[in-house]
């Protein structure tokens, strides 16, 4: 039985797809058979971030409608044998993602995969609710910024009511906070909400803090998930996230500002 993880946020542009790509790659690198599904019907993007955009033949909706089999649609990652990508459809018909159809595909995938990572679209519309409906775990991607924190809290409300687990009165979805685009320097200057502030407001288990990093853009430019960049702070932070998700007690890194020189200290920020 696979464990289904939804990467969600409500707000757009906070790093859901970057996170989905990194987490899927990270889980697969450790020998877990992992699939990552793009739920953003109409706006396909995960394939680009994963670097397999030219290998897309069939998509998620094709599998639901029976135009393709799951095996035909799944794209095997060239860097990691245990990782597969199921791209989103570019159809404009958002309702193509039926709950029954999604459930059937996830059931079939559940037989052969250890983890299914669902990359949710932004918003609280159909695609986003479908991505979370079957989830066992939810990773709520949040920026230290007012609108993102508020939207994350709204998503928590939806996770608690509109999921299979909620409807069947099973154990609730396990919810984790992932703080992205974090700038310790700005937090120190009082310009940005700190990790403790966000955690206090949302009261969620902290899965990790990803520092703001130019390497993230570089990774998506190249179509290589950021976790593959072992030199990068952000890549290392995602590696820690995987360890924590799998149950290791790893201390949080990159939370403190880099020490400034004498000049910097005299004149502040």
């Amino acid at each position, binding site marked *: 039985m696979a464990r289904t993880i939804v990467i969600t946020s409500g707000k757009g542009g906070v790093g859901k797809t970057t996170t989905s790509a990194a987490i899927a790659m990270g889980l697969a690198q450790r020998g877990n058979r992992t699939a990552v599904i793009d739920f953003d019907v109409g706006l396909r993007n995960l394939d680009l971030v994963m670097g397999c955009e030219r290998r897309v033949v069939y998509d998620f909706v094709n599998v639901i409608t029976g135009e393709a089999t799951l095996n035909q649609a799944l794209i095997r990652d060239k860097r990691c044998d245990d990782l597969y990508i199921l791209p989103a459809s570019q159809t404009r018909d958002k309702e193509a993602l039926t709950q029954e159809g999604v459930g059937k595909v996830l059931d079939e995938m559940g037989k052969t995969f250890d983890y299914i990572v669902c990359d949710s679209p932004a918003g609280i519309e159909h695609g986003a609710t479908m991505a979370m409906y079957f989830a066992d775990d939810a990773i709520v991607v949040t920026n230290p*910024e*007012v609108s993102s*924190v*508020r939207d994350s*809290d*709204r998503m928590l*409300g939806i996770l608690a009511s509109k999921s299979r687990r909620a409807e069947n009165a099973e154990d609730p979805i396990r919810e984790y906070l992932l703080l992205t685009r974090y700038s310790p320097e700005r*937090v120190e*200057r*009082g*310009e*940005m*909400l*700190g990790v403790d*502030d966000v955690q*206090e*407001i*949302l009261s969620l288990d902290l899965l990790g803090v990803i520092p703001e990093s130019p390497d993230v853009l570089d990774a998506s430019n190249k179509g290589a998930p950021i976790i593959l960049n072992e030199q990068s702070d952000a890549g290392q932070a995602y590696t820690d996230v995987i360890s924590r998700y799998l149950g290791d007690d790893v201390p949080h890194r990159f939370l403190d500002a880099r020490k400034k020189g004498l000049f*910097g*200290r*005299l*004149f*502040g*920020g």
Partner: protein
Amino acid sequence: MGLLDLFRKNQKSSASVAKERLQILVAHERSARDNTPSYLPRLKEDLLKVIRRYVDIEPDQVQVTLDSDGNQEFLELNIALPEDR
């Protein structure tokens, strides 16, 4: 903390303003969420069924909300009927 910060000292940092605003907002939105009785969606569905026996309306044309004002609670039902009836 640099020399320049001394002049800004008495100003509250924007991050702490953000935190205060969020704490108030999130508490408010959560209480609205948690106080909504779980039967509300089913009530809405049933109402919709009854209304549909007489008028052809879309689900989003019926709004059921629960508001409270002090000791009183208001169940507000808002039905938008199609114009050509």
